[in-house]
């Protein structure tokens, strides 16, 4: 067999196929858009190269091969030319081999394009151009070509088993989705925030990962750095490649061995034995009756329902989705976090799938069915017959919509049944009302989509154009394309709302915008209904337009229309106008909520701020001495009135003549402000939120600044994480509202590339690198921003008002409950207040009142209280007395962070802090560990660890990991402590293997896996080498020398005191662990 002419023949076929070019162009465009932008300069270009190619393989190739396979492998049967081809001299095997090879070459050529493009982009970004090109070719050879061979072999095998293109499409989609799920389940860096759920699965992926990423990452976890050359990849990698190539070969062999059925076409019904009518029959007309919509509608519904429901693809897709939903709920329902099990309910079960799996896959299936329904007659080539019948277009379209809506309903019902089955098998009680609520929230947007998609197909005469339009809509609705294009407005996300998952703590208040516990939410201002109205109106207006311009299922030009005002045109105009009005309403609300600024605009403002105001760094400015707040908070109406009085003190030797007030977010939200003895000058910069006052403040004197705020929570967008006013939970961190005095260095851009983009020079290491900025001593610019806090909160009766300080008084007046808090001494100037309708549990430790606010109290809250007591006692005994009046811990909804500490306040996510219990194999309690960690921030974070601009999070997050180790060992034994070390070691190995950040010392670390996991390993090692006595002595000394009002501490101060406390023989180790960048020693510790 001469291969070359046959391959050329394949090319001649491909080059005239629109689907081929469309697939190639779309794949290239997608790759260019998503993967080829240089973005940030990664510190490890070879690893970045590997990840980027793995991502391209994962996201593009399975789908591309799925589409091209149907074109190349099934073309004979699809176009009815089998009989002609099968009688040629070429054998079936030869034909299959050539076509499979052609398919593989197509995919390989496209991959080559990706390789060239990525290498070109990387060459412009990185210095080691030779290395980039060398690795690009090597990865193409050993990573990508074998992977493409496997995908091609799989497609070939499927094409031999089934002649339906749908099967190949589904196979491509299954590989695409399956790998993503596997990547997520094995903690691959390709899937953000994923973690390994099974060591066995991770181990299997090392050998069977078709894209060979897992074995490379496994090696990275061991060695800590990317191999310098291909030859340095270990045997596991090569074994993986061998297995993949063998598997591809096996699939090809099985495909070639497969014997097709004698004929793919059924035998036509016999005709020869039917006698012709001996007697001529007469035609008897049957005059049609007056057209009645009902029977016609029923007939259309019945036929379309039968045609779609009994297709293998429909049944297969439904079954696959149900299995996916069941497996997602059954395997993940009890998972709170590592070593921690959730005590779940129906809402948790539904939340596993209602946020992504069901809406996304539901939408994809809706789009698939919309296509099938719209072109059903045309695909069956009966479009002409049906279009010529006297049925109105409206009836035809309406029947399609009803059938599609029914299918969507069936899909949701089946999926919810799968959830219920999983829930019952896990013996979790069913809450049918919750199923109804969530089912409705999934269904309504899908029904809008159904109408929108059918309208597209009805308006566009060619399936290709209609499908392209639908693909465009889906891309904007489902992919991160709007983000990549910096299209910040939520309405760019076609068909989407701002709906967030309901939370057991505050129900649907997160986004529905409900002002009470009702499910209905706020139809005008919530984050769901206004968007749904908008998309529904848009869909209806397009739907009514489609009724007038419907091509009736044929590809011919539509009949001419009478240009007259009909009820339909009026309905279209009215719906379009209403959609426009609703869009404007959403836009105005979003604008009011400040949600329309994109990242670039925010960065540009910060750059402008630095350029215009950095000279204020040298201008003497007063400091905030006291913050007095009077807050009237109404959670039901989601409003807060805040009156703030700031006492400004001049601590300098010279008078302060000008005052720069900057408002957080670089916006000015105040309605009224009065500065005693001050007068605003002309320089009011509303764009950057800066105001300059002329003021005469002599040394040692003070003045007051009065501000009043009125906050109305905007439900149309999710509440900012530190500014929530909802009936079940309200939390305001006033750092976001109160003005900042003088120039704030933290607002400067830090990333060099971003600074360069906005025309700023890089910041010197002496300002950004902790080990340099405080190499010898704490920088002179360091100062504590501490103040006395006096807070009075008014909340509705039944609510608890919570703030920093001692509770001086509580009283009722005018139907409100008042709480007055005051700190006895200055604390870090981060005033915050919380209001919840729950009771508190009180205790005390070392003379400090402890309180927990929670909707319920259980063993988890008991353990939390125990952790608070023991942490407070341990710190008081070993480091220093508690720097506050009381400590209050409040459960918070699942809004992101699992824990957050403020001065004298701690917030814990209820999912991991209230509703979780240790799993059977847990070596330690996550509930206890987290509570201890957050309480430790009262010393490290809000005690010391603040006041040095540019210092790292070492004194805040890393040192508290030491406290976790000590407290776990003290309370639960060495095994618990070692369990934490092992856990963090695994986390660290996995995270650093997938990270593209440059290696840095622990003191300079900016990556969270360094600050937490690596810190745990470092402190475990220090404990083993130095002993707790030395470390605690160093921490105690640090506390004593740097606590307020003494000069603030930097991370390097800890290194200095630790060195001072340690024997000389250990100094190299300290140097290596805290200031060195070599992590191999930590990775290989077992």
């Amino acid at each position, binding site marked *: 067999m001469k291969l070359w002419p046959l391959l050329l023949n394949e090319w001649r076929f491909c080059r005239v196929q629109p689907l081929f070019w469309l697939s190639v162009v779309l794949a290239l465009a997608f790759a260019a858009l998503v993967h080829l932008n240089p973005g940030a300069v990664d510190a490890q270009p070879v690893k970045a190269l590997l990840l980027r190619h793995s991502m391209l393989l994962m996201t593009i190739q399975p789908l591309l091969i799925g589409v091209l396979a149907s074109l190349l492998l099934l073309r004979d049967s699809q176009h009815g030319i089998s009989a002609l081809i099968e009688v040629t001299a070429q054998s079936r095997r030869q034909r299959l081999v050539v076509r499979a090879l052609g398919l593989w070459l197509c995919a390989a050529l496209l991959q080559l394009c990706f390789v060239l493009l990525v290498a070109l982009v990387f060459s412009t970004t990185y210095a080691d151009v030779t290395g980039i090109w060398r690795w690009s070719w090597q990865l193409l050879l050993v990573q990508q070509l074998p992977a493409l061979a496997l995908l091609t072999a799989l497609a070939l095998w499927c094409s031999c088993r089934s002649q339906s293109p749908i099967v190949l499409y589904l196979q491509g989609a299954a590989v695409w989705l399956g790998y993503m799920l596997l990547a997520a389940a094995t903690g691959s860096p390709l899937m953000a925030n994923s973690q390994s759920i099974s060591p066995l699965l991770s181990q299997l992926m090392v050998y069977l990962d078709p894209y060979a990423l897992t074995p490379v990452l496994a090696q990275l976890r061991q060695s800590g750095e990317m191999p310098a050359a291909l030859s340095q990849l270990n045997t596991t990698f090569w074994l993986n490649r061998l297995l993949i190539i063998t598997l591809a070969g096996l699939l090809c062999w099985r495909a070639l061995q497969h014997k097709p059925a004698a004929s793919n076409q059924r035998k*036509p019904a016999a005709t020869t034995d039917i006698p012709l*009518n001996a007697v001529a029959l007469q035609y*008897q007309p*049957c005059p*049609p009756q007056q057209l009645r919509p009902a029977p016609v509608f029923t007939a259309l519904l019945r036929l379309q329902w039968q045609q779609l429901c009994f297709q293998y693809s429909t049944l297969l897709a439904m079954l696959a989705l149900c299995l996916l939903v069941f497996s997602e709920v059954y395997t993940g329902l009890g998972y709170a976090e590592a070593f921690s099990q959730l005590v779940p309910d129906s809402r948790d079960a539904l939340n596993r799938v209602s946020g992504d799996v069901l809406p996304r896959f539901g939408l994809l299936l809706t789009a698939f069915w919309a296509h099938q329904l719209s072109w059903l007659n045309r695909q*069956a*080539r009966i479009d002409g017959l049906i279009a010529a019948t006297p049925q109105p277009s409206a009836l035809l379209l309406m029947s399609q919509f009803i059938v599609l809506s029914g299918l969507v309903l069936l899909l949701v019902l089946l999926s919810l049944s799968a959830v219920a089955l999983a829930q019952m098998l896990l013996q979790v009680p069913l809450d049918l009302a919750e199923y109804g609520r969530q089912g409705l929230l999934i269904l309504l947007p899908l029904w809008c989509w159904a109408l929108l998609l059918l309208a597209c197909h009805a308006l566009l005469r060619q399936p290709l154009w209609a499908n392209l339009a639908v693909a465009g809509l889906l891309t904007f609705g489902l992919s991160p394309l709007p983000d990549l294009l910096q299209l910040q407005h939520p309405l760019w996300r076609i068909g989407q709302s701002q709906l967030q998952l309901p939370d057991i703590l505050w129900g649907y208040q997160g986004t529905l915008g409900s002002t009470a516990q009702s499910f209905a939410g706020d139809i005008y201002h919530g984050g769901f209904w206004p968007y749904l109205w908008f998309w529904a109106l848009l869909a209806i207006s397009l739907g009514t337009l489609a009724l007038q311009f419907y091509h009736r299922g044929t590809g011919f030009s539509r*009949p001419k229309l009478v240009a007259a005002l009909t009820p339909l045109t009026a309905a279209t105009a009215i719906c379009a106008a209403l959609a426009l009005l609703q869009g404007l309403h959403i836009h105005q609300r979003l604008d009011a909520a400040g949600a329309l600024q994109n990242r670039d605009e925010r960065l540009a403002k910060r750059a402008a701020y630095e350029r215009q105001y950095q000279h204020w760094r040298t201008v003497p400015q007063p400091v905030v001495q006291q913050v007095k707040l009077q807050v009237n908070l109404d959670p039901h109406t989601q409003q807060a009135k805040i009156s703030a009085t700031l006492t400004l003190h001049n601590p300098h030797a010279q008078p302060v003549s000008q005052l720069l007030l900057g408002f957080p977010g670089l916006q000015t939200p105040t309605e009224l402000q009065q500065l005693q003895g001050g007068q605003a000058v002309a320089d009011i910069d509303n764009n950057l939120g800066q105001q300059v006052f002329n003021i005469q403040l002599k040394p040692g004197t003070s003045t007051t600044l009065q501000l009043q705020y009125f906050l109305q929570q905007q439900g149309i967008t999710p509440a900012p994480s530190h500014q929530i006013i909802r009936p079940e939970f309200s939390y305001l961190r006033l750092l976001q509202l109160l003005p900042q005095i003088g120039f704030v260095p933290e607002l400067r851009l830090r990333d060099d590339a971003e600074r360069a983009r906005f025309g700023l020079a890089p910041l010197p290491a002496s300002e950004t690198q902790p080990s340099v900025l405080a190499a010898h001593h704490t920088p002179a610019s360091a100062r504590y921003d501490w103040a006395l806090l006096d807070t009075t909160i008014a909340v509705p009766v039944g609510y608890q008002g919570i703030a920093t300080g001692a509770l001086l008084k509580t009283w009722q007046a005018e139907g409100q409950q008042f709480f007055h808090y005051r700190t006895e001494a200055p604390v870090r100037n981060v005033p915050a207040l919380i209001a919840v309708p729950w009771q508190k549990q009180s205790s005390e430790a070392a003379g400090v009142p402890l309180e927990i606010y929670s909707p319920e109290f259980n063993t988890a809250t008991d353990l939390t209280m125990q952790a608070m007591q023991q942490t407070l006692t341990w710190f008081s005994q070993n480091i220093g007395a508690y720097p506050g009046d009381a400590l209050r811990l409040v459960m918070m909804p699942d809004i992101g962070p699992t824990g957050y500490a403020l001065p004298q306040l701690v917030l814990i996510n209820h999912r991991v802090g209230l509703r979780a219990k240790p799993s059977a194999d847990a070596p330690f309690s996550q509930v206890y560990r987290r509570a201890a960690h957050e309480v430790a921030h009262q010393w490290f974070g809000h005690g010391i660890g603040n006041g040095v601009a540019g210092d790292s999070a070492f004194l805040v997050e890393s040192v508290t990991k030491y406290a976790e180790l000590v407290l776990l060992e003290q309370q639960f034994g060495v095994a618990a402590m070692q369990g934490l070390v092992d856990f963090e070691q695994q986390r660290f190995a996995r995270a650093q293997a997938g990270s593209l950040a440059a290696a840095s010392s622990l003191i300079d670390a900016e990556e969270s896996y360094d600050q937490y996991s690596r810190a745990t390993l470092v402190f475990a090692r220090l404990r083993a080498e130095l002993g707790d006595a030395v470390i605690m002595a160093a921490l105690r000394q640090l506390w004593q020398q740097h606590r307020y009002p003494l000069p603030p501490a930097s991370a390097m101060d800890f290194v200095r005191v630790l060195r001072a406390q340690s024997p000389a023989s250990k100094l190299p180790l300290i140097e290596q662990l805290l200031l060195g960048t070599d992590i191999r020693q930590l990775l290989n510790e077992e």
Partner: protein
Amino acid sequence: MLQIQQLSKTYADGTRALRQLSLHAGRGLFGLLGPNGAGKSSLLRTIATLQSADSGTLLFDGIDVLQEPQRLRAQLGYLPQEFGVYPHLSCRALLEHIAVLKGLHQARARREQIDQLLALTNLSTVAGKTVAHFSGGMRQRFGIAQALLGDPKLLILDEPSAGLDPQERAQLHNVLCEISRDRLVLLSSHIVDDIEQLCPNVAILLQGEIVLQGDTQDLIGPLCGQIWQAFGADIELPPQAQLLQRSYQRGIPLQRVFAPQCPGADFSPVAATLQDRYFLALAKQEATQ
């Protein structure tokens, strides 16, 4: 019944399918002849309300078809040149479905007509079988049956005898002749014999234009005495003779020519047919290009 004036249609790729086409047809069978690509199917699709025209008027029984397509559909029977069927549906079920769409809402009357049409098209014994598995001829008969559903006043049949065997074709002719008494049957076909046998009126369509239209006999009449044929391949023709057709009779080459006088000794006069008129029109068209 059907009046078409100045009808034009140009497709998006620039193909001018219909050029200022005008046509008049009364009750009865009306034949439409033309080579492939002449615009027959475009014309029939336009009349069947499946596509719009760029300009012109199209009236049927007083209905402005381009403006009120729905009114025409209520009295239309349409058999396209090519059509498919839904999978899994039996012949009877599919006829039922189309009958309902055509407004036959009385179940009994509908059933009776379907039974009658099944018998008429010889499909009674396979009425319960899936149409998708029918042979070409059976499927064509199904197409004819569905076109006859109801009481169409305008029946558009595009190549109705394609795939039918001689007996089935004869049966179809019987049916068409019978039903055309009180309705217009527009018949498009490549088989000129069919048209000649069935249609008292005919139009020849070439490159989107009607080049000839009228009573079939009137069109053939002028050719009488001017059609000659001769056996043999290499017979020289005088300049005034127009070669109409080269064919074979039992393997022997046969030439058929149009000439006012006998073109040669080998030629003998034969009766003129519609096919001669059609080929003559084609030849004239080629000559003018």
